[in-house]
């Protein structure tokens, strides 16, 4: 089948898509956007989190066909040109990135949290990110990064 989807503001078309393919597969393997990660492909780790019509979703759980005509923003769409989003900047600056495999999903989830709750408490950050597994960091620096990003966004 053919799937039409808007990705990071651009209209994209994927041909010869199999019925069983996920949005994650289409993004990664057909549209050349491997930023969203394939860690479990079972909806358990959050590494593949993207915005789907403005709401964070696990791209591995979305069938490609379900994405038809919808609006997707991936980690590749968070920065504006060379300018990183404050969330991205803070993750680098605060050492919240180690292997970085969890990072794209966490960035989308954290970006969404700060959009909804500009000044989140620690408990709110923990709740919002509880669906994103990270095996490297122990999360402490991720918390630092989210706090920092919220502060930065408040100033901008």
């Amino acid at each position, binding site marked *: 089948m053919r799937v039409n989807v808007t990705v990071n503001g651009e209209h994209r078309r994927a041909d010869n898509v*199999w019925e*069983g*393919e996920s949005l994650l597969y289409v993004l*990664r*393997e057909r549209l*050349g*956007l*491997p*930023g*969203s*990660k*394939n*860690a*479990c*492909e*079972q909806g*358990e*780790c959050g*590494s593949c989190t993207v915005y789907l019509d403005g709401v964070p979703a696990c791209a591995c759980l979305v069938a490609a066909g379900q994405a038809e005509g919808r609006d997707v923003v*991936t*980690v*590749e769409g*968070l*920065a504006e040109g060379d300018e*990183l989003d404050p969330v*991205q*900047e803070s*993750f*680098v*600056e605060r*050492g919240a*990135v*180690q*292997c*970085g*495999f*969890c*990072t*794209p999903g966490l*960035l989308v989830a954290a970006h969404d949290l700060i959009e909804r709750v500009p000044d989140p408490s620690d*408990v709110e*950050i*923990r*709740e919002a*990110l*509880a*669906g*994103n*597994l*990270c*095996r*490297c*960091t*122990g*999360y*402490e*620096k*991720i*918390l630092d990064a989210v706090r920092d990003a919220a502060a930065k966004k408040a100033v901008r």
Partner: protein
Amino acid sequence: MSAPARSPQELHDTIAGGIGESPLRPDGTLKVRGEFAYSSDLWHEDMLWGATLRSPHPHARIVRLDVSRALAQPGVHAVLTHEDVPGENVYGLKYQDTPALAADLVRYQGEPIAILAADHPEIARQALKEIVVEYDVLEPITDPERAAHDDTLPKLHPDGNLVRHQRIVKGDPAATADVVVSGVYEIGMQDQAFLGPESGLAVPAEDGGVDLYLATQWLHVDQRQTAKALGLPLEKVRLTLSGVGGAFGGREDLSMQIHSCMLALRTGRPVKMSYNRLESFFGHVHRHPAKMYYEHGATRDGKLVYVRARMYFDGGAYASKTPVVVGNGTTLSVGPYDVPNAHIEGWGVYTNNPTCGAMRGLGAVQPTYAYESQMDKLASALDLDPAELRIRNALSEGSTVVTGQVVDFPAPVAELVQRVRDLPLPPEPAGERDIRELPGGASNTTHGEGVVRGVGYGVTIKNISYAEGLDDYSTARVRLEVLGGEAVAMVHTAAAEVGQGLVTLQQQIARTELGLTRVSVHPADTSVGDAGSSSASRQTYVTGGAVRNACRAVAEAVYARLGVPAEGMSLVGGKVVAADGEVVADLAELLGDTAIEETREFHHRPTYPLDPETGQGDAHVQYGFSAHRAVVDVDLDLGLVKVVQLDCAQDVGKAMNPDAVVAQIQGGSAQGLGLAVMEEILVKDGKVRNPSFTDYLIPTILDMPPMRVDVLERPDPHAPYGVRGVGEPPTISATPAIANAIRAATGLELPRVPIRPEHITGV
């Protein structure tokens, strides 16, 4: 054929900062932009997808294997079995006992039987179902203790079911003491659960060889094993590291390396393999489960008199790192304590359980949980404060460990315990509590009525680098040249960046040694000498040492070119500067359009094998030490545990990158927490019951408490820059600290980790 379109980038990003500072990762920006190419992101025009057929049985004979129907499927380009392995169908890290593809006997559930390559991963998955395998199913061997002693069991390997037995005898092994405590401790099978799946892309080359782009911990050991199975000379099997999504030991053994290369060579097309999570659980080795019998004897005033222990490590189907686990487990068996008398025995065995191998804290995690449980038991028998008992028995510089080796470097164990004890405790809970902070969180069904708090300690000793006589070394090539009018250096090693920050560190060392601002890191590959493994907390030490040596050789070549004596000269800010501060030359001018390139190795001082009978010998090059204090809340009615705070003090010798050191300690502690309260691969009759992230639980951000980290720097005079390996100790000491805190809260014995709700409620 050309390199894959998505290949790992050279890390040009300029970061500032030398040794002892905390510059940002050079790969950080790529990673947050989603542009960093991990091994599962590789892509090549015209590439095929590889897939693996695995045994559903833990123990079986293969009676018939027929791939013809699979091969006839449209879109399938090759289906290969053990008969197609071009070279030797056997590999292994320590012993050569693992077939690339099973020939007649299957020894674990998930063992690879056949591989195929197809146009689409779904075609590949479907085609696997068309492969016909008839099995004669056999009774699995699953009890490691029996496997060690019962010679009537079937032999899984020609030499039997014993991989290694090691005894250690110190002082009077039959010594007696006033106060004696004993216990039997068990530890479940933990998984590395790195997030990036096993994956890579094999590209056939015009010379009949193959280029493999992959995620691994040790390029050269993969190259050696893969080339042997492919029947190719080393130089025709070239490996390049792509982005690695975590490793923790789980990438030391081969997974898709031989398979993807076989398929690429057979089809003449690039072949990508990427395991899904289910397959990943079968595709890599796990942490050895263990059963340990311990007895401690002490004087009335709390001095250890003896330790006697027997420990059994379940190595599963193949040896992998089991010999090392037995070596580490026994040599580290009494912990960071001065013990005059000991009798220790360790067994590592083959069974039909999943293969176990390297995981962070290798061989030290198991005994630490046991002896730290014993230390608390002893403290309570002596009516002593648990931290005080540890301080009284702490090892220090000049102590003799259980193998007779003298600790000839700082060993501030007592100070670490003292420091972690002195950190402020979280406030005692008072009044109405936020339900989200109670054990079980928002899904809790009580309001904290039955919640009790406990505090516990865990302290560990871990050997750094490879041991027992191995010549453990690394190689670095450093090139100095002028780019854009500025002197810049490029560091090239085969050392694997697996997330720990080695790329940052290599830049830091080169900047400091060469007095430059711009340093880049070449992608790691096998076109430079061996760097050894990114494991055993050794890369900063060994590859750090190699980069230092290569940089110093480059500096000497600079002085030689100038014709000045190296004595008193240094490189600062792109200039050659004499002892009196006078600028002798400008590097950029001196080099012009030439380059200086030097390659150097670093070998750490030698270690020696253990005496097979007494286990005596200078087996280890260095030890790392860490201490944790855990504070837990336990809901006695529901059996739920909330770790409220987890603090750590660790000696790192020299904090080369202080922020990265803290990050390692936090991440390692999270894995230790996981083992304490949730992480276990459940194996029944040799079969894995929870191979998914739904059922194998790793800590989330809700499970990790705030952490205070106290970093000590007591330089090791034998190590480059005084460094001491950092990565493993925190994983090891966190687990017993939490277990001891839960015991303190509940008064229960809790002789097994992970501690589950039913262990607490008793139902």
